[in-house]
Every structure is written in structure tokens, then in C-alpha cells.
């Protein structure tokens, strides 16, 4: 490929974003409010149905599925996207990146700081983007091999099952490392004490809500509710972790070095987002349940474009990629997920080729 014209590439992507933002309006506001309502309905019905297990256990199972769906919608389509600022233009007091908080162990404010800044600015830059492998998994040869990488598949399974706790802890540690350097004359660093406080207070709230309060008010149905909540949280953990791994750790995603991003232009930043992310094909319901992270490429190019628009912009983005001969990494869920598993196994061994 000849030397790419990054500026022109950036202009074309910018104009896709601008044209789409110009169309954003009532339709998108109605959309996110509709998703929020369905999230509430699923959650309420789910929690009530956990109490009907004595009538028929199948009802209990439906309850679990509904509660898990509600949590997935809250975390992915609503929480993740709203906290990215995608719906800030609505000027709604509750649906905006400053005030939204989600139903997950990880404190929203801490997550927002690290995820939006570190992961989205330095996507797949080894040493900067701590989300690449979450400090637990070796997913490219850029990392030195250690003996523990031999059983990293098991580590991965554990991480998936406990994903909300992994994320909660990960963001806490990231803050410590990343904001460790002080800039002269200004203190932007969040004190460790506040981070710890946020971590523990959110975690306590979550544990008491799902594993103490709701089971207790169910009285004799204590165990049904406790186990139901536990399974719903597990299902949410597995789903979110699986989808998120398909976004950056599939077989063909690229990684970058710190040196390569010095003096990076906007075009080069777009280029890195393009090669560092991967999409999953699927139907409308699937995209909704992934919080449109199945459009990870579009999400990384335009992190604050409302998720309701990703399906519209995807064909335009593909067109631009084709013109610049960039790979548009997409595939079915099974292709992408088996790519993730391959990667986890492959880099279990030293100097994989």
C-alpha cells in the first residue's frame, strides 16, 4: 500500500460524523428513553418472577433471564453509551455522562475516568491501554511471557465469571498507575482514599442490594431470590465479558507501540482505532443486547455518537475503509469469538508465531 493520506482519511470520517450528528434528534431521544423503560420493565418483572419459583421453577428461570436482560441493557446499551456522553445533547438531568450510574459493582465515575480517557485515547497501545489483556492475560508478543500464561485460559474463564469485580478492581488500579505523574502547578489526581472509598461503597451497595436486601424481603423465598440474583449477575458477567473480548482481542486486531503514537495526527488516531477494533455481525436485537459494541469499530471512531446511529454509519465507514484499503474486521459471533479463544491459547506459549 502506498503512503496513506491520513488527513484526507480523517476528513472523510469527520464528515460522516458531522452529517450523522446533524440528523440526531427526537428519534434518538425517544429511542434511549424507550430502552430505559424496557430495562425497567424487565427488571421489575424479573425480580417479581423470582418469587414465583414455588409455583413452577420455569417461572423462576424466566425471572432470572429477565433480570439478567435488565442488567445487560443497563450496563451496555444505556450505561456504557450514556456515560460516553452520547446523549448529553438531550440536556436531560438524568440521561447524561455526568450523572448516570449503573447497576454493576464498578463505580461509574471511576470507570468513566479510566475507560474514556485511557482506553479510548490510547486504544491498543501496549503500555498505555491497560484494557489490552487487563493486566492478566498475555494477548500479544509485546508482553514478556511468564509461566502463569500457560494456564491463562483458566484465568480468562475466572475473569469472565467475575467480570464486574474484575472491572471494578482494574479501574481502581489503573487510576493509581496512570495519574501517578503530577503535572506542575495543578493537582488533577484523584486521591487514593477517594478511589478506595468509591470502590468499597459501590461494592457494598451492590452486595447488600442483590444478596441481602432483596432476598430478605422475600422472606421464606430467601434462597430462591439469592440464587436467582447470583445467576443473573453471572449471566450478565459472562455476556458482557464475551462481547467486550470480541471487540479488541479477536484474531486480527493490531497493537501499537508507544513510540508509534508520538505526535499522532487525528487521521493516525482514526487509523489506530480502525485496526484495533473488531465488529460482530448480527440482528437488531443482538446489537441492542451488545450495547452496539458489535459496532466496536464505529464506536471507537465516534465514541460520542449516539449508539442508535451506529447501524446507519457502518456502511459508510466500510466504504471509506475500502477506499483506503484498510481491513474492516467483522464476522459472525462464532468466528470472532473463536478468534478470541485462539488468541488466548496462542499467546499462552512463549514467542507465538
Amino acid at each position, binding site marked *: 500500500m502506498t503512503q496513506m493520506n491520513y488527513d484526507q482519511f480523517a476528513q472523510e470520517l469527520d464528515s460522516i460524523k458531522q452529517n450523522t450528528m446533524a440528523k440526531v434528534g427526537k428519534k434518538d431521544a425517544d429511542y434511549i428513553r424507550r430502552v430505559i423503560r424496557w430495562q425497567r420493565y424487565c427488571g421489575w418483572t424479573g425480580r417479581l418472577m423470582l418469587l414465583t419459583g414455588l409455583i413452577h421453577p420455569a417461572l423462576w428461570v424466566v425471572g432470572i433471564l429477565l433480570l439478567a436482560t435488565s442488567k445487560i441493557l443497563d450496563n451496555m446499551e444505556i450505561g456504557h453509551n450514556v456515560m460516553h456522553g452520547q446523549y*448529553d445533547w438531550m440536556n436531560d438531568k438524568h440521561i447524561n455522562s455526568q450523572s448516570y450510574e449503573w447497576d454493576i459493582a464498578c463505580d461509574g465515575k471511576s470507570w468513566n475516568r479510566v475507560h474514556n480517557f485511557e482506553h479510548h485515547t490510547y486504544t491498543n497501545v501496549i503500555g498505555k491501554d491497560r484494557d489490552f489483556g487487563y493486566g492478566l492475560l498475555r494477548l500479544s508478543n509485546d508482553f514478556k511471557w511468564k509461566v502463569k500464561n500457560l494456564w491463562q485460559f483458566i484465568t480468562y474463564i475466572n475473569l469472565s465469571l467475575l467480570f464486574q469485580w474484575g472491572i471494578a478492581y482494574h479501574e481502581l488500579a489503573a487510576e493509581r498507575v496512570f495519574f501517578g505523574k503530577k503535572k506542575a502547578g495543578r493537582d488533577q489526581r484523584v486521591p487514593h482514599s477517594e478511589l478506595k472509598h468509591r470502590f468499597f461503597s459501590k461494592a457494598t451497595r451492590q452486595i*447488600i442490594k442483590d444478596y441481602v436486601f432483596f432476598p430478605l424481603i422475600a422472606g421464606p423465598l430467601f434462597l430462591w431470590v439469592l440464587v436467582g440474583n447470583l445467576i443473573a449477575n453471572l449471566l450478565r458477567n459472562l455476556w458482557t465479558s464475551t462481547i467486550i473480548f470480541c471487540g479488541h482481542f479477536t484474531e486480527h486486531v493490531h497493537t501499537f507501540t508507544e513510540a508509534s503514537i508520538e505526535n499522532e495526527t487525528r487521521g493516525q488516531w482514526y487509523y489506530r482505532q480502525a485496526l484495533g477494533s473488531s465488529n460482530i455481525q448480527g440482528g437488531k436485537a443482538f446489537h441492542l443486547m451488545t450495547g452496539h459494541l458489535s459496532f466496536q469499530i464505529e464506536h471507537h471512531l465516534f465514541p460520542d455518537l449516539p449508539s442508535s446511529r451506529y447501524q446507519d454509519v457502518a456502511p459508510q465507514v466500510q466504504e471509506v475503509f475500502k477506499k483506503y484499503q484498510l481491513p474492516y474486521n467483522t464476522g459472525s459471533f462464532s468466528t470472532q469469538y473463536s478468534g478470541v479463544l485462539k488468541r488466548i491459547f496462542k499467546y499462552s506459549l512463549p514467542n507465538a508465531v
Partner: protein
Amino acid sequence: MLSTTLNKLSLWFSHHSAFSGYFEPVIQRVKPAWRQGLYRAQVLNVTKTIGSFVHITLQPQHQWKAHKAGQHIELTAEFNGRLLTRIFTIASSPEQYAKDKTITLVIKTNELGRFTPQLADELTINSWVNISAAQGEFVFQQSNKPLENPIVMLAGGSGITPMMSMLSEHISATNSPMYLRYIAPLNEHQFVEQLESLAKQHSHFTFDLMTRSEHKSQPLTLLANSDVYCCGPQGLMSDIETLSKDAGANFYQEHFSLAPIVNDDSATEIEVTVTLNGNAFTASNQQNLLIQLESQNAPVIRGCGIGVCHQCHCTKKSGLVKNLLTGDVSDSGEQIIQLCISQPLSDLEMSI
């Protein structure tokens, strides 16, 4: 006490600062425009009049408390999915509200604005908007005793709205002379019929409709004991204030913020005042806000610096900024902005 406990519980169980926020989107299915902390009001009538004014009659929900003549409200309406808020004086009297539970706003539309042009075209009859409680200190100062002092009212442009409300409310309570001078471009005076009928009914009330040049050529004479009420452009108000002081009259005024004058020409450097959490900083339109606030040790948070990560966002209460990535000029009302890609175009009021 109870509400603090409830809000704490809400944080635990619904992840919202108040339960009402958690339930809001669901409640809105039944009660359109239901919003925590605001009153609902139904639009009963929207009429365009000469001089690009629009008269809007609203019926607030019954919990709304009647205003005092001269007070204003914040009006919030949803236009194409965006909630926009502006402040308007209530033109109708508290008496009207007591009688038929309606209030009337008389609003000058500004075709370059984001809010007022849409009022006339997009507010449909029976649709819902939000209003705040009535607020403001521009009310009759002697309302509790018989009005004795001569009253002089000066209105410039849409500054007529509080005067109409005050006139209808207080005109019968006094026999001392009341004089209104209403300055507006030729043929753009509002409420002419109402004013004429008030003058017919009350011999102590007189008024003049003037253009600005007529006002300049016919200086006001004020008595030492008069109460002077003034609402209009800043220039008019400061002139009248001086005049009142010289005459020994009491002067009361109401500011209304005009749409800020936008200087979108980056070639000319302008300096603006940025009020952040109540502290004033200065900034120029030549650089983004983040760099400038950082250099003055304002409590801002730096993130990526290129408009990606939203770490530097803060809530702009008023003023205009330009988005350096898209070139869009913001709305003048409240919204969340990213400091690193915001160029100030006017004085700003913000909070973090």
C-alpha cells in the same frame, strides 16, 4: 429528613440521586414532560403578533404557586429531542391566574436564536412544557400599603411584559398618577388595545408609545418621590437610573439578558469572563478553554485534550462556545461542554 433518606435509598437501589429520576421515563408515558423538580404546564394557545412577538398561554399544573406581578419563570421545552431552557417574564397578572389558572408569556422571537423561533412553529396546542416556580424581585415595592407615590414605568422592547403584569395587578389600588412610557420600533408595540382600555377605565393612568428617537427628543421629568420601574436594554436602564438619582426618585429595574452578541470571527481577539463555580477567570477566544483555565489554576480535569474522552466536561449554565472539532456554535442555555474543544465566544457561567 425523609427525602434525604429516600434519596439515599434511591442511590442504593436505583442508582439515581432520587427515585423520581429512576421512574421518570416511565412516568412520562402517562404524564408527558413530567420532570423531577419542575412543574408541568400545558400549552393552551400560541399566537404570533406584529413585530415578531409570540403570545403563549399556559396552564400550569395546580401545584404551581401564583406569581407576583413582575416575576419571571424558567421555561423548558423539548425541541427535536433537546431540552432547552430560557427565562421569561410573565405578562399576565396574578388575577388572571386566580381566575382561570392560566398565565401568558409574551416573547420576542429572534430568528437567529435556537429557542424563540421554534416556540411559534413547534409548540402545538395541548402539548406540554416545563416551568419553574415564579422568581424575581422586580415587583411593586409598596404592595402592602395604599400606593401613594407617583409611578413611572419605562419599558424597552420586550421589557413591556413585567409592566403589563404589574399594571393589571395594581392599577386599581391607587389614585396617584401612573405613567408608562413604552419604547419600541415603529408599529411593533404590543398590548396597544389593552393599554388603551386601561387608560379609558382609569383616569390616573396615562401612557406613551414611542420609538427610541422620540424618547430621546422628549426627556422624562421625574418627581422626587416617584417610584420608577424600568425594564429594557442595558443602555436605557442606566440612563434612567442616572435620571432617577438626579431627581431623587426611587429606581427599580429588571435585567433581562439579551442573546449574547456573538463574535465568531476568530481573527479578532476578544476577552471574556468565565465564571466557574462562582470564581471569575478571564479567557480569550484564541485558545480552548481547558488550556486557559488550567493556566489560571482552575479546578479543571485534563483528559486526552483532543475531544475524545469527556474527562474535562463541565456544565455551562449560560453563554456561547464554539465546538472546535465541528465548528458548531452552542446554544446559550445550560448544557454539558468539553473544555478542550470549546472556544469561548461570550462571557460564560459554568460549574464543575
